């Protein structure tokens, strides 16, 4: 049963679009691209149709790789290959750059705002993860620099509780960082993927995390407790046999649907049925239970799909972007309640 029903294409970027990110209220979509710009899109009234509400340019001198909204939706952080992360603030219809986070040695690949809004995490090809504290007056102070990965760090993502930061790396591992006595420490390193881990996403409750990789698999990790009662993440399930190229992006909806974007041009949705069937071909059964392919849109883009993200407060909508320079909005019907 295919999930996709309709798609709206949004042009504007003149190079590959690396990332799309919804504002927390779901009313704005930010996109960033190899053309060094960030675009803000909004829905143009009841007649529908999306339009570009703002172009954030002349700040980054190289590719803008990812962006992240502050929890209130008033600020946007943009991470660039130019080694900086810019902070933009919305005043009415205008966007103004209010801060630049400098410190990484080279390409910044990902930025993530903590759920409380107090911290911003960035990561880079320089193998490090930086934590920045947001202070009054648009000051951002680096509070910790974590070396731990042996290669590029591709993505950082916060646990919904805000007390755990996950980082995914070219070194094939995921690290989970927690704060302990004013310092962030690596609480756990998750191994299992056989190539670069491109992205991770948590489910709504934070009890599970999914990762996607150049090894063409997804892995689902469950949060359990060790003997001391501390959180302990364990591999629950490997979802394999669906993607034929690297999986670049993964997101987990509030309706418990996992969506992926892949180098095979497809967008796929996976669900975890409440009643696990005894045998589902291609899916290994683990303590996390089976995941089933809910739907697949082949040729969702005419090139690699770089990013997919569910729209907040609109349960069946998602945005995607790709190497074809296009942003698409999808209506995914027949998703479970």
């Amino acid at each position: 049963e295919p999930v996709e029903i309709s798609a709206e294409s949004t042009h504007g970027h003149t190079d590959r679009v690396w990332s799309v990110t919804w504002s927390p209220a779901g009313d704005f979509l930010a996109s960033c691209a190899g053309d060094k710009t960030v675009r803000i899109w909004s829905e143009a009234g009841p007649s529908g149709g999306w339009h570009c509400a703002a172009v954030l340019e002349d700040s980054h001198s190289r590719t803008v790789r990812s962006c992240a909204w502050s929890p209130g939706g008033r600020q946007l952080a943009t991470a660039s290959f130019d080694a900086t992360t810019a902070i933009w603030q919305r005043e009415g219809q205008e966007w103004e750059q209010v801060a630049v986070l400098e410190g990484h040695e080279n390409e910044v690949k990902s930025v993530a705002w903590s759920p409380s809004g107090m911290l911003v995490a960035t990561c880079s090809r320089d193998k490090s993860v930086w934590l920045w504290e947001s202070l009054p007056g648009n000051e951002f102070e680096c509070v910790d620099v974590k070396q731990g990965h042996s290669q590029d760090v591709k993505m950082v993502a916060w646990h919904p509780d805000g007390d755990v930061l996950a980082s995914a790396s070219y070194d094939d591992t995921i690290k989970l960082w927690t704060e302990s006595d004013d310092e962030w420490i690596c609480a756990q390193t998750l191994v299992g993927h056989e190539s670069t881990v491109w992205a991770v996403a948590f489910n709504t409750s934070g009890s599970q995390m999914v990762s996607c990789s150049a090894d063409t698999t997804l892995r689902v990790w469950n949060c359990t407790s060790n003997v001391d009662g501390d959180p302990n993440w364990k591999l629950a399930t490997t979802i394999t046999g669906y993607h034929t190229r690297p999986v670049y992006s993964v997101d987990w909806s509030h309706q418990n649907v996992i969506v992926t974007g892949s180098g095979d041009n497809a967008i796929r949705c996976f669900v975890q049925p409440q009643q696990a069937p005894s045998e589902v071909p291609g899916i290994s059964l683990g303590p996390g239970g089976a995941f089933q392919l809910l739907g697949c849109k082949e040729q969702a883009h005419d090139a690699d799909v770089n990013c997919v993200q569910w729209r907040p407060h609109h349960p069946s909508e998602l945005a995607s972007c790709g190497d074809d320079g296009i942003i698409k909005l999808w209506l995914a019907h027949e998703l479970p309640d």
Partner: protein
Amino acid sequence: MDLINPEPIIHERKNLKSNTDRTTTSEDQRDAIDPLEIFEHIRDITDPEHPYSLEQLNVVSEDLIDISDDKSSLRVQFTPTVQHCSMATLIGLCIRVKLMRVLPSRFKVDILITPGGHSTEEAVNKQLNDKERVAAALENPSLVQMVNNSLQGPKP
């Protein structure tokens, strides 16, 4: 500068049937892109440290090219002249850039070292096929200059 491989073996440039000489089944039917066509695109790339082409150094050859036009997939294997060639990544990048410039964007291209052809084969392969690393490399002006020099072909 010390050369990594001071005395490489030089092979002759082959005379290949050009595209136009080959028989076409029908005037309006497009011929599928085949390994020979890919080889013609990459044979004259020059080695970053020698005035010789990748064909003359036997770094690339037609039989190490796998292409499926239907599936829009292409795999090119290349063989560095020496096991510890520090130029391997740059050579692979030159091949990738050349193919990016001439092939339709629908193609998924994998560039790999011929198995056993390099001491750090896995690391080089991983880097050459990481699109983010490649994108970042191609924003580096001095690296792009080196790639462009190699893509100009042998000096007359």
